[in-house]
């Protein structure tokens, strides 16, 4: 098995005061070494749960119930404490949405970065900051996080994430808290560093434009499953899943002047157990009887994988 990350029938559930909530519903996903993958979906689709599961960073109320998740062939949920620490330290790099909460507010930036790099010296630490696109490494290193702008702080977080040359970078909404005018530049830094390091990158986002521009592959999540995955250009130009299609029609920016946006009706589902049917069916304009009777499974269609009984019809509609 050469895949870097491999999730097979992964089920993760949260035990909450109001009962059990299934966040990942038999999720299947593979990430190859060096590839960039965007995972898009609404809040509650399970994308952040997946991101955290890769580092086994889920909160205590979350339980991995079945399935497997392997990183370079190692079972993440079976790793002993030592092995887990090694795995997090050497293989993974995380970039979260809010850089201010990712950094320690009481420690100067320089010390945090050299710690993340395994106690490296000043020169090496400053070189990391420069690599992450920070022009004045001395000043930045001597600052506390609150003295930096959001964009600079996120660059510091990126520097820390790549410090150990990880095999896999996971970025959860890396630019959502940043100003529009600097988003593109921070994203470019992240992509450049990922390429230099030969690492794979998973970007979790709800911004379709960002996903399309920055990643080769795109996975669309809904109800704890990957409902469509393929090359970004293929999936976005000819979506085969009604949900992907709905997301595209709802996003402002694709419409012609004077045209109406078409929101997806209804709400995302709150799964209590394994979905016995297609969980998108209640909101789907294409739904038929079999959608509520039979759980769709992943299948190949037109150079992508899709989880929908009616994908052929959706494709025909899309090409019209």
């Amino acid at each position, binding site marked *: 098995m050469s895949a870097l990350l491999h999730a097979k029938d992964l089920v993760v559930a949260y035990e909450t005061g109001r009962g059990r909530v299934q966040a990942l519903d038999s999720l299947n996903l593979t990430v190859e070494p060096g590839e960039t993958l965007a995972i898009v979906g609404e809040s509650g689709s399970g994308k952040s749960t997946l991101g955290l599961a890769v580092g086994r960073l889920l909160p205590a109320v979350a339980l991995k119930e079945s399935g497997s998740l392997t990183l370079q062939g190692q079972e993440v949920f079976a790793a002993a404490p030592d092995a887990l620490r090694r795995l997090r330290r050497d293989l993974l790099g995380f970039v979260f949405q809010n850089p201010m909460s990712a950094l320690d507010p009481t420690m100067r930036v320089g010390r945090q970065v050299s710690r993340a790099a395994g106690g490296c010296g000043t020169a090496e630490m400053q070189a990391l900051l420069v690599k992450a696109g920070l022009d004045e490494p001395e000043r930045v290193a001597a600052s506390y996080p609150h003295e930096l702008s959001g964009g600079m702080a996120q660059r510091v977080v990126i520097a820390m994430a790549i410090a150990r040359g990880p095999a896999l970078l996971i970025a959860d909404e890396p630019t959502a808290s940043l100003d529009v005018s600097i988003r593109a530049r921070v994203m470019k830094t992240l992509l450049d560093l990922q390429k230099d390091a030969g690492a794979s990158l998973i970007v979790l986002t*709800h911004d379709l434009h960002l996903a399309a521009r920055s990643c080769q592959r795109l996975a669309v999540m809904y109800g704890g499953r990957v409902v469509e995955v393929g090359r970004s250009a293929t999936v976005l130009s000819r979506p085969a899943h009604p949900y992907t299609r709905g997301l595209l029609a*709802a996003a402002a920016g694709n419409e012609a002047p004077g045209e*109406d946006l078409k929101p997806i009706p209804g709400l995302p589902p709150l799964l209590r157990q394994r979905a016995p049917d297609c969980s998108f069916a209640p909101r789907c304009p294409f739904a038929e009887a079999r959608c509520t009777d039979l759980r769709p499974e992943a299948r190949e269609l037109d150079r992508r994988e899709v989880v929908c009984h009616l994908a052929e019809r959706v494709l025909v509609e899309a090409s019209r």
Partner: protein
Amino acid sequence: MSATPVISLQQASLTYRKRGFSGGTLTAVKSVDLEIAAGETLGLVGESGSGKSSLGKLCLGLAKPSEGNVAFQGAPFPGRKALLGKLSVVLQHPEWALNPRLRCGPSVAEPLEIAKWGDAVKRSARVAELMGQVGLDPSFAERYPGELSGGQRQRVAIARALATQPEFVLFDEAVSALDVSVQAQILNLIRSLQAEQGFAALFISHDLAATRYLCNRIAVMYKGEIVEQADARRFYGQPDHPYSRALLAAIS
């Protein structure tokens, strides 16, 4: 249109004094000319710190211009009492705009109570009507904000803002915190409510895609100044100012 604009700014500037002993000043809004007519939505885009929210404060009369004039319906801002129920605002985070310990019904009725509008029976009928207008079941009046999704909460916040049938509504990043599909619902809702009620609106956002969809005209703000003001359709093509082009590039 010859009617008096609801909000008009003439060469309005807003200067803040910086904190601390240095005593410097910061001009957040520089000589802005702006008019918003009834039934019109003006979009205001720009990066953080460009002065969008300060300009919003001027339009609501929450800040007095350091220079220039701000007029509401052709006259300088009257006292707070006279403005009761005529101005309204919808903010980015509905969870901060709604009292978490108050059911949604009383939250929506509160502006009516303050304006001494009708009696309790009439007010609760109005709340039910408002809930319907924003696409919620009247039973939502009995729920707490914490039981609602982000989109539903924003609908309640909009119902509350429109309760007194204001002349002017400020939407400050009103859809930025919402998911793509919900964003479209709320944008369409704002559009149809405005067509019904004809309020003037200022839609502040850093998201050009949402702004050009919703608005008739768009003003681009950069470092406190309005660098371009044009018909929204212009922003589907090639806007004039380099900063507008940079914003446009960010969404395509």
